[in-house]
């Protein structure tokens, strides 16, 4: 069984398969490493940086690191890394415009859930108050750019039968925005529109005509903090 890799996370002994991404291997061992852009079995984006851990004293993103013999000791829940993650959550809240009480994804939103997990009170960073648009051209989807955290899940996962992307980035740096292909999105199926809404970690992609289907109290993170399912699995 040379394919089995032994490593530790914060001292806890873990095993995984060689080449498996650290974040997935950790989950199988009951260790939660927070993610916003990662989606199992989809090519990693490595863009949200929230899964940053320390491997042999170097910072790496757990969603992009295939494990091997050199993994050794991984640091995950240290105060330093917790603070970095909290900072990243705060940063996302000041960068976009997130009015949780008015958002349909509230309670189902990974960003909000991480805000609670890291007990964010007031962001340490100055608000950007960037003006961003809402794209409502598709008959099936609202693209609420104010809430996008640029995780690229929609870009990587939502494609038509010819492999063409419905979603893409526009611009770069501070002008970066998410965009939707007007022609393709005009004919997007209900199923795909629903899938796009489900994979979006925040409330940036919303399906039109239906709304607030899950009542408060029955939403993903209403009763348990994010990551509990993984932590309880072992």
């Amino acid at each position: 069984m040379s394919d089995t890799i032994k490593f530790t996370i914060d001292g806890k002994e873990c095993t995984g398969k060689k080449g498996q991404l650290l974040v997935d291997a950790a989950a199988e061992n009951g260790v939660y490493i927070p993610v916003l852009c990662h989606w199992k079995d989809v090519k990693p984006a490595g863009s949200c940086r929230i899964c940053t851990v320390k491997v042999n004293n170097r910072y790496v993103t757990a969603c992009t690191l295939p494990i091997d013999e050199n993994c050794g000791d991984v640091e995950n829940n240290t105060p330093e890394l917790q603070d970095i993650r909290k900072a990243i959550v705060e940063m996302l809240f000041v960068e976009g415009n997130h009015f949780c009480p008015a958002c349909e994804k509230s309670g189902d939103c990974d960003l909000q859930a991480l805000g609670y997990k890291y007990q964010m009170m007031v962001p340490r960073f100055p608000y950007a108050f960037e003006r961003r648009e809402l794209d409502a051209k598709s008959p099936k989807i609202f693209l609420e750019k104010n809430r996008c955290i640029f995780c690229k899940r929609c870009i990587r996962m939502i494609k038509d039968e010819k492999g063409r992307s419905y979603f893409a980035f526009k611009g770069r740096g501070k002008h970066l925005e998410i965009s939707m292909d007007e022609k393709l999105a005009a004919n997007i199926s209900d199923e795909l529109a629903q899938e796009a809404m489900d994979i979006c970690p925040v409330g940036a992609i919303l399906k039109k005509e239906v709304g607030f289907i899950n009542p408060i109290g029955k939403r993903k993170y209403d009763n348990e903090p994010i990551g509990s399912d993984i932590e309880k699995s072992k």
Partner: protein
Amino acid sequence: MEEKIKSIIKTSGNSPDRLMDILLSVQKEFRCVPEEAVSLIASALGISEADVNQTKTFYHFFSSKPVGKYAVYLNNAAVSGMMGMAEVADEFEKQAGIKFGETTPDGLISLDYTACIGMSDQEPAALINSVVFTELTREKVKEIVAGMKEGKTVESMVPEYGDGNNAHPLVKSMVKNNIRKAGPVCLGDYDAGKTLSKALSMNPKDVISEVQKSNLRGRGGAGFPTGLKWLFCSQESGERYVICNADEGEPGTFKDRVLLTERAKMIFEGMTIAGWAIGAKEGIVYLRYEYDYLLKFLNSILDEMREKNMLGKNIMGKGFDYDIRIQSGAGAYVCGEESALIESTEGKRGEPRNRPPFPTQSGYNEKPTIINNVETFCSAVKIVEKGGEWFSNMGTEESSGTKLLSISGDCKQPGVYEVEWGMTIKEMLDMVDATDVQAVQVAGPSGVCVPPSQFSRKIAIEDLATGGSMIVVGKQRDLIKDIVLNFMEFFEDESCGSCITCRSFNMILRRMVEKIVEGRGIKPDLDNMVQWGEIMRNTSRCGLGQTSANPVSTTISNFRELYESKVKDVDFQSDFDMKKAIIESCEAVGRPPVVHE
């Protein structure tokens, strides 16, 4: 339009990985990439329009609206600012009757800013339809704009040609080489083809070990051992590629420009030797768009080398097939980062990849690829010619050989200097005749701002590492406003935006510096900026985000008193400015704001 675009797509190769070339040709033809073109390209390549736009909107030199018949791109890098850019910009606006960011109503002239164009030794400089104009003054701007109004060609407005190959019939540029000091490696004597013939009679493994013996480390900035990189790649299986990084985007560097002008054959020869060493059949030069004025010339050199059988089939009768092509960029600093460069070469937005895998394992077209800087390839030629030991006897313990320095800013002799590693900053300043120096910015914005108390430090990978950019900042400059703020604006624009940390922190830090410059800063801001920069360094994917807090952190550490003189010594101050907030509403009702302090 449809016919034209279809023929462009056809000649560029009807494939998504040629998207950069397609967009470059469309932009050149129509002075923009109109929506109709996007739609035609998307259907021809079988990708969505959003995907075409994703590449199009990433690059500075692609536009949705037509740029002027004369499209002016004035360099707004720090050195350009130091050399009088503001005056030049003002004159352009006056003469053209428009502001920067605008096009004249008749479509004749457009004015835009652009990041460093690799002319720091002859600023202020601008690109006009990819023709370079250097050392601009109000007078020269008047003449240029008058020429535009008369309908002169841009080429005919170039007053005189520069030295060396700048005057070559295929270049005809006013750019000067400014080679102030030639050394024995890159700018010394060179006999084209001699070393290639030697290398091809060697075993590829021996070529690599000679390079390893020299201890040559990459000249693009990161300093990775070149021989080791070649070795790793040679050990992979299947098709392999050689890429030459001629993106030279770090503000303040221009030495690759000079090598491309005067040592093109040497660069291509080095790439061919590398191809032989690692077992590649194809080499690609990624040439920044700002050096488009050299493109025809460089292609003619490639043709000449093909004719002489230094490229092509069965090179020099040694049974080695290898050729080189040039890929143009379109204006993005981050495309100098090796994996972003590969993405761009594949027709995508220049977003750095996650590592692992490294390019030597999976690079261009997911095949093992070595990427080296222009100067690295030139150095490799001399190493194979004269031996690794000859090379490693120069320089310092950890940095062997010579380095080309691009020195600019407040000095009397700006230009390119080939020196042995190990020179101190003080010696360098004497060499370029600089007095009253406040600081030296080593390695460009992503490097270190060195104060006079540290001028005895050495230019070497183990002390002050540099890809070559050296900006001398005189005492008369406002360091925070002219340098730090300019650098942060640069990073804010040039971040690819993929990492949340790099995208946001560069914006936040730029705003913080602006706040201090405007006199609204408070003391705790300083430590906050350093700490936030540290988070960005530790969590960003590529070298850009990992170093872009340096302008802030190295100046706060080395020039703290300067910052302290500008910030208020209080613990808290509201960022909310009542006067500012109500100005608009007061204007609307037509009365001055009354604020009770």
